[in-house]
C-alpha cells in the first residue's frame, strides 16, 4: 500500500533543539488527493511541514519520509524541491534586492537538466528558459492570481502585505509545478478576499497531477479548498483521520473532543 502513495511519512520522530516535537507521525498523500491536517497551536504542524522540506534545524530522530518510493531524509531542501515537493510558507521570507521575476527564473532554471560550470567554476550567465518565454509564463500565472504585472519587479516578499506574500507563494507553486504541495497555514493573516483568491489559485492547480496537504488551525480555508481527507494532529501525532465531515465536527466541537476520544480513535 505504502509503495503506491507519492508521499509516505512513516512513524516520524522529530526533535528541535533537543525537544521532541513529532512523536511517531504517519501519513500518506497521493497525487490527486487533497488532505487537510488540522491541529491546535503547538501540535507540531509546522514542524512536520519544515521537516518534510528538510529545514536544517529539525532533526529526524526516527522513522522515514519516502517520496516516490525513496527516502528523502538524506536530501537537502533544494533536491527535495526539484524532486517535486513544495512548501507554501506560513511566513514567507523576504529576499531584498531580488525581484520576483529574477527569483522565479532562477528557480525554474535550477529545475532544468544538468548544468555545467565553465572552467573558472562559474555558471554560464544565460541558460535555461528564454527570457521571452519566461515573461509570458509569468504573466499568465500572475493573471490567474490577479496579480498586477508590476509585481514581477518588486523585491521578493520585501514589504509585501500578508495577502501579497501568500499569493506569491501560490504563484511560485504554479510556476514550479510540484507533485505534492504542502500549504502551511496559508490562510493565516488573510482577509476573506485574499483567502478566496489564494484558494481559487490552489483549486485551479489541483488535479490528478498534484497532491495537496493543507495544514491549518482553522476550518475556514476548507470552505474554499475541499479536502478528501482530514487528519487531526495532537501532541506530535495524527490522532484521528476521516473524511471532510471531520473538519466540520472539529469546527463545532473544538479539539477537545479529539483529546478526550484520543485513545479510542487510535
Amino acid at each position, binding site marked *: 500500500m505504502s509503495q503506491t502513495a507519492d508521499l509516505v511519512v512513516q512513524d516520524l520522530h522529530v526533535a528541535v533543539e533537543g525537544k521532541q516535537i513529532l512523536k511517531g507521525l504517519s501519513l500518506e498523500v497521493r497525487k490527486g488527493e487533497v488532505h487537510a491536517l488540522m491541529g491546535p497551536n503547538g501540535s507540531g504542524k509546522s514542524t512536520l511541514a519544515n521537516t518534510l522540506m528538510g529545514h536544517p534545524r529539525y532533526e529526524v530522530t526516527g522513522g522515514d519520509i519516502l517520496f516516490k518510493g525513496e527516502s528523502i531524509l538524506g536530501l*537537502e*531542501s*533544494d533536491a527535495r524541491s526539484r524532486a517535486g515537493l513544495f512548501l507554501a510558507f506560513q511566513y514567507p521570507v523576504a529576499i531584498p534586492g531580488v525581484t520576483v521575476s529574477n527569483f522565479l527564473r532562477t528557480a525554474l532554471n535550477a529545475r532544468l537538466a544538468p548544468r555545467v560550470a565553465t572552467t573558472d567554476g562559474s555558471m554560464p550567465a544565460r541558460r535555461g528558459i528564454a527570457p521571452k518565454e519566461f515573461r509570458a509564463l509569468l504573466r499568465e500565472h500572475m493573471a490567474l492570481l490577479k496579480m498586477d504585472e508590476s509585481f514581477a519587479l518588486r523585491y521578493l516578499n520585501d514589504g509585501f502585505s500578508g495577502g501579497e506574500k501568500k499569493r506569491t507563494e501560490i504563484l511560485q507553486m504554479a510556476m514550479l509545478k510540484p507533485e505534492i504541495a504542502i500549504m502551511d497555514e496559508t490562510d493565516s493573516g488573510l482577509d476573506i478576499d485574499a483567502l478566496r483568491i489564494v484558494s481559487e489559485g490552489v483549486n485551479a492547480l489541483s488535479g490528478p497531477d498534484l497532491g495537496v496537504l493543507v495544514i491549518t488551525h482553522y476550518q475556514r480555508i476548507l470552505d474554499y479548498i475541499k479536502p478528501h481527507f482530514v487528519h487531526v494532529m495532537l501532541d506530535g501525532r495524527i490522532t484521528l483521520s476521516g473524511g471532510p465531515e471531520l473538519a466540520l465536527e472539529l469546527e463545532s466541537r473544538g479539539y477537545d473532543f479529539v483529546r478526550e476520544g484520543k485513545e479510542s480513535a487510535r
Partner: protein
Amino acid sequence: MTAETRILAKPVQGGLDAWPALALERAVGANEPAWALEQRREAAEVAARLPFPDRRLELWRRTDFGTLALGELDPFVPGPQARNLDDLPAIVIARLAGEAANLGLLVQRNSDVVLEQTHPALAQQGVIVCSMERALREHAEKLQGRLGALIETDLDRYTALHQAMRAGGAFVWVPDGVQAGVPIRLIQWLDGAGVAGAPATVIVLGRGASATVLEECLSETADGPAFFSGGTEVFVGEDAKLVYGHLQDWGRNVIHYSNQRARIERGGELQWIQTFLGGRTTKTNSYFQLVGAGAKAYVHGFMFGDQRQHFDLHTLQKHLAEQTTSDLFIKCALKDRARSVYQGMIQVARGAQRTDAYQANRNLLLSDTARADSIPGLEILANDVRCTHGATVGTVDEEQMYYLMTRGLPRGDAQRLVVEGFFAPVLDRIPLESVREQLRGMIQAKIG
C-alpha cells in the same frame, strides 16, 4: 603605437625625494599658470616635512600599504597617445561596450591623457571635457580657486605628494543652465607593475546645470605593485544636479589612495555612487560639503572583496547650511580573507538647522576569515536636526537560504541570489546600463 606596446616603468634616480622637482619641471614645460606651479611647490614642501602616515593616526589605524616602497615606482610613465579607440587597451574597449560615440570621453593611461573626445552635442552646449593639462592652458581662470581648493594639502603625506606630483586628470565644465546631453566618462588606466599615477580631476556644474559623470579605474592584474593616487574635486552649483559615479575596478596589484570632495551649493543635488571591486588595497576619503540651504547629497556605495583585498572608505557628510539633506548607504560583502573598514562621520554646523542626515553601513561576511569594521560617528552642533545612523555586520541569513533552497535553488545559487540582492539597490543606481550590467557580471563572477 598600439595597445600591445610594452610600457616599462623604472624607478626615478634619486628616489622619492627627487620626484617633486621633476614634476615641477614638467609642469613648467607644459606652461601651467604660475598659481598652479606655486601650488605644486607648496605641496612639495608640506610633503617634505610630513612623515608617511602610520597607525597612530585615526584614519590610518586599520589600513596601511604594507610593503609598498613608493620610491621604487615610476610616476612618469608615459601613455601612448591613442589616435582612436582601437589604440586603447582591450579592457577599456570592452568596458565602453561600443557606446563611445555617445559619450564625452577622456582616457588617461599612466601619467598622460591619451584620448579626449568631445561629443558634438556637448561642444554645442559649451560643455568642456578635456585633460587637466589642456584646461590649465586654455581654461585656467575656471580652475583657479577650484583645483586644490577642496582637498586639504596637509591631510597626510600622500595627499601632499599627490598635489605636488599631479599628472593628467580631467576637467569637466557644464555652463549655467545646461543639461549635458550625453554622459561623460573619465577612464583611468595603469599599465602593469611599477607605475604610479596621480591624476587630478575637477568637475564644475554651473547654476541649474545637470550632468552624469563616471570616473572608472581599470587595469589588468600585474605581477608587482602599482600605486594610484587620486584627487577629485566636484562643484555642484546652485540648483544644479550631478550624478557622479566612482567605480574602482583595478587589477589586483594596485594600491589605491584617493581623496574625493564635493561641494554643493544652495538647492544643488548630488547623486554619488562609489564602488570598490578591484585593487589590492583601497583607501578613499569621500567628503561632502553641503554649503547652501536646501543642498542634497545622496551617497550610495558598495564594496565586494575576496582573497586578501582590503577596502577602507571614510566618508564625511558636512552640513554647513540649513535645510540640507544627506543620505548615505554603504554596503559591503567580503569573502575569503578580505577586510573592510568603513568610517563615517556626520557633522552638523551650529547654523545648519532642520538638517536631515542619514548614514547606514551594512556588512555581509561570506567567510569566517573575512572581517568588517564599521565606525559611524556624529558631531551635531545644531539643535533642530534629524540625524540617524546605523551599522550592521552579519552573515548570510539561514532562513533566506532555506527559503530559496526550498524552491530548488542549490546552496550556491541561493547564496549568489542573496548576495546579488544585497548589492542590487546600489547597483540599480549606476546610471549607464552597459556599465551596470558589467558590474553585475563582475559581482556574479566574484560570488563564484
